[in-house]
């Protein structure tokens, strides 16, 4: 193993409920505070205790936003972890394991080094088994060659309020395990990262970034029902909104959530709900109401493996067609696809402005990996100056007064399709908002001409949606195009970099909006590409279906489909891309 690499990957494994999460979070936080770029992700199950789980952290001197197949240090709290995870270790990789369970190297991996440290013994001496995580982190500091002082600072800040004794016990576990690891290694670790730049970055999940974006946009009402991986949107807002006068309601179900939000939107608040697949299914009727009554609400769908309960804790991007077309009837909506934590923030702001400007539901199509996994974000990349609040076409009280009683037509047919709206409390602005077809006053109407006018009015609005349809990176003239959306951004970007470095001209087109579908932008972005590989976490190629329906890149499309619950890695993209045309006929299940 080379002495200094631009990045190192670390993983801790053990039984669920043993503190694996906090261990990973602490390493990610300490590395972030030192100035490294971090990406942290987990493998967990829908259970509270027991079962193998792991947390992997990528540390680098440049932004990293994807899973990786490589591993340099494995921290094992049980032999299962070594059995299940050792295959990821690069040649010469290090395993540090609790001496308590008499760890053994896996067969045929004599290249690995096993470092035994008595995590349990050190923890008990420090004050109890709870300190085993600190012992694991002390050993981690030794193996990754990170300064122990950075971890000691963390402990002092984190546990200072609990008193000096707690800090001292944590520090004891850290330092003793650090010393024991160095002693077992017989000297300093061979692993080194380049020096960190010391910049203060944020470490947060996509859901946290999105929730702050929503709050910044003036969201004041959130209603939701707990569901993985969307709950943390609610949990973040429940901390933020009361401080600015807003309210968070844990509703009785997802139907109540979306209708509560529809009611709040009707009454003039900026309102949002967040859910995942099963909740999305329940919300379809509410979405149709918002489309027809022209209510500006925001819905976040943190996609996970489906259908039905699927694999609730695993990533997937299989709701896209449901987001674009779901529900009965033809209900206009806007669907945005943030790809990064920064975009989770900015798209939340944009979603509220689009909802108000176009008076329709706006869906933010996130996914589990973006929603739940932590990444470092440069504060400069969250542009607070760009946060603008645009409430769209609102009628003023003066205008209503001039119109007088009965003079206001809420659903006036206009050239843009957007009609100025009033909000309850405004005199002479009274109207009926209904999911039933209605006339310009909002009153129920089944007149054929009115029906056509109203349907086309609502559909026409979306022609003016100006949110970017796609981003283009890499070599914009490359003959190979990688097309993806959502959390695969990091993996595809790295893959495009690697392919371009090998001389395979590659453009990376990341779709940022799927409704209204950005046909012209994508045609332009893909012009001249000979091969268009569409990469998505689903089994049927839903983005590819949208491209085909729009007639984009006709005859040049192929797919990389991943739906096994694990995260896409850059290597997988490179491997499929370099298979060339053979990919179309390759026997792999995941390649269509």
């Amino acid at each position, binding site marked *: 193993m080379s002495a200094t690499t631009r990045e190192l990957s670390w993983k801790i494994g053990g039984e669920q409920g043993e503190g694996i999460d906090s261990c990973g979070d602490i390493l990610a936080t300490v590395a972030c505070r030192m100035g490294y770029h971090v990406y942290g992700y987990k493998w967990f199950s829908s259970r509270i205790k027991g079962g193998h789980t792991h947390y992997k952290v990528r540390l680098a001197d440049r932004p990293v936003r994807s899973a990786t197949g490589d591993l340099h240090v494995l921290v094992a709290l049980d032999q299962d972890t070594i059995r299940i995870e050792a295959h990821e270790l690069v040649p010469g990789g290090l395993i540090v394991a609790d001496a308590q369970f008499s760890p053994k190297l896996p067969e045929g991996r004599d290249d690995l080094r096993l470092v035994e440290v008595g995590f349990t013994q050190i923890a008990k001496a420090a004050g109890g088994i709870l300190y085993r995580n600190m012992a694991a982190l002390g050993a981690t500091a030794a193996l990754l060659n990170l300064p122990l002082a950075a971890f000691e600072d963390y402990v002092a800040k984190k546990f200072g309020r609990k008193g000096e004794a707690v800090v001292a016990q944590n520090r004891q576990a850290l330092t003793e395990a650090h010393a024991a690891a160095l002693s077992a290694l017989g000297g300093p670790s061979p692993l080194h990262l380049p020096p960190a730049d010391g910049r203060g970055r944020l470490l947060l999940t996509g859901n946290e970034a999105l929730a702050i974006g929503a709050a910044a946009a003036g969201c004041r009402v959130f209603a939701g029902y707990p569901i993985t991986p969307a709950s943390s949107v609610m949990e973040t807002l429940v901390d933020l909104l009361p401080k600015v006068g807003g309210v968070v309601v844990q509703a009785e179900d997802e139907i109540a959530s979306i*209708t*509560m939000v529809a009611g709040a939107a009707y009454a003039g*608040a900026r309102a949002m709900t967040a859910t995942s697949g099963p909740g999305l299914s329940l919300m379809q009727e509410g979405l149709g109401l918002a489309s027809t009554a022209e209510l500006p609400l925001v819905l976040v769908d943190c996609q996970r493996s489906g259908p039905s309960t699927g694999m609730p804790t695993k990533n997937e991007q299989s709701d896209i067609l449901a987001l674009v077309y779901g529900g009965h009837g033809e209900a206009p909506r806007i669907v945005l696809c943030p790809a990064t934590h920064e975009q989770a923030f900015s798209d939340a702001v944009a979603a509220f402005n689009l909802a108000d400007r176009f008076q329709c539901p706006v869906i933010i199509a996130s996914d589990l990996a973006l929603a739940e996994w932590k990444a470092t974000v440069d504060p400069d990349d969250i542009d607070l100056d760009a946060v603008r609040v645009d409430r769209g076409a609102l009628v003023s009280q003066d205008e209503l007064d001039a119109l007088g009683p009965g003079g206001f037509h809420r659903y006036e047919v206009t050239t843009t399709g957007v009609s100025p709206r009033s909000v309850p409390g405004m*005199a002479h602005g009274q109207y009926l908002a209904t999911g039933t077809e209605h006339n310009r006053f909002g009153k129920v109407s089944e007149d054929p001409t009115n029906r056509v006018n109203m349907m086309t009015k609502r559909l026409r609005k979306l022609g003016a949606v100006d949110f970017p349809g796609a981003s283009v990176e890499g070599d914009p003239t490359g003959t190979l195009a990688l097309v993806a959306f959502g959390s695969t951004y990091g993996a595809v970007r790295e893959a495009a970099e690697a392919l371009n470095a090998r001389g395979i001209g590659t453009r990376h087109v990341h779709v940022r909006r799927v409704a209204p579908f950005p046909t012209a932008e994508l045609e332009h972005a893909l012009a001249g590409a000979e091969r268009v590989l569409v990469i998505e976490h689903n089994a049927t190629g839903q983005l590819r279906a949208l491209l085909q329906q729009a007639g984009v890149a006709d005859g040049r499309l192929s797919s990389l489909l991943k739906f096994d619950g694990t995260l896409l890695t850059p290597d997988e993209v490179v491997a499929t891309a370099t298979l060339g045309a053979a990919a179309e006929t390759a026997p792999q299940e995941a390649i269509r």
Partner: protein
Amino acid sequence: MATLADFKTDEKAWWCAGCGDFGVLAALQRAFVNLDMQPQNVALVAGIGCSGKIGNYINSYNLHVVHGRTLPTAMGVKLANRDLNVIAVGGDGDGFAIGMGHFNHAVRRNVDMTYIVMDNHIYGLTKGQNSPTSDRGAKVKSTPWGSIERPVRPLSLAITGGATFVAQGFSSWQPQLVKLIEQAIAHRGFSFLNVISPCVTFNKLNTYDWYKQNLRNLDDDPAYVADDRARAFDLLTRTDEMVTGVLLRDDSLPAYDELVPGFQDVPIAHQAPPSRAEVEAMLARFR
């Protein structure tokens, strides 16, 4: 001061001649005037069914929603603007079949709004199927051999669920109904008013005459005091809920908005977005 005309629209009602819903509409408009309410400050959230059409005939802010979801929608309206008089209206199918899941939650939250159910013991708009409040044995389109299910008892459910205002009216007894609506709206907290509103077209069992013979008016019983949950439940059980009047009024419990942390007097709909400094503080948590 607003007049009756201010709360009327020029829409001609789609209801059948003789429908009990006309009485509810008239009583609502009369109560609005008596309470000196303004059309622009009334938000009426209506469900799906014959009763849900009421929003077409009242000049106020009206939101006609998805079947069964009046209560969460109305709660959203109230959260967004606490200054509005929020009234949810719907039928027995809307409220006690498809929407039943929301009823008990609205009751226990005690949001300051009024829920009026126009209860005709039948599905009218879909032309005569069994309703959750249909009597056992009722022979209608979907139960040709007679309903085998016992009916929902909405008043008892509200009482046991912790409601702070529970009443029942009858669309034919206008003076009492107007008073009940006034009290329901004036109540601080969630007020539930079930209104017997006969269907003249599809319900041949529970007719005006039948109700007049069977309903007991609590106004005729000065001994009944509506301040005791157990007494109310006992009365409802003994009378099979065939009573009109205020069953229970409990002003001791705070309304939802009084308990929401950080809830401000300025309605949410009128609040400005957070300042840049406030957003920076939100982000700083993640350093």
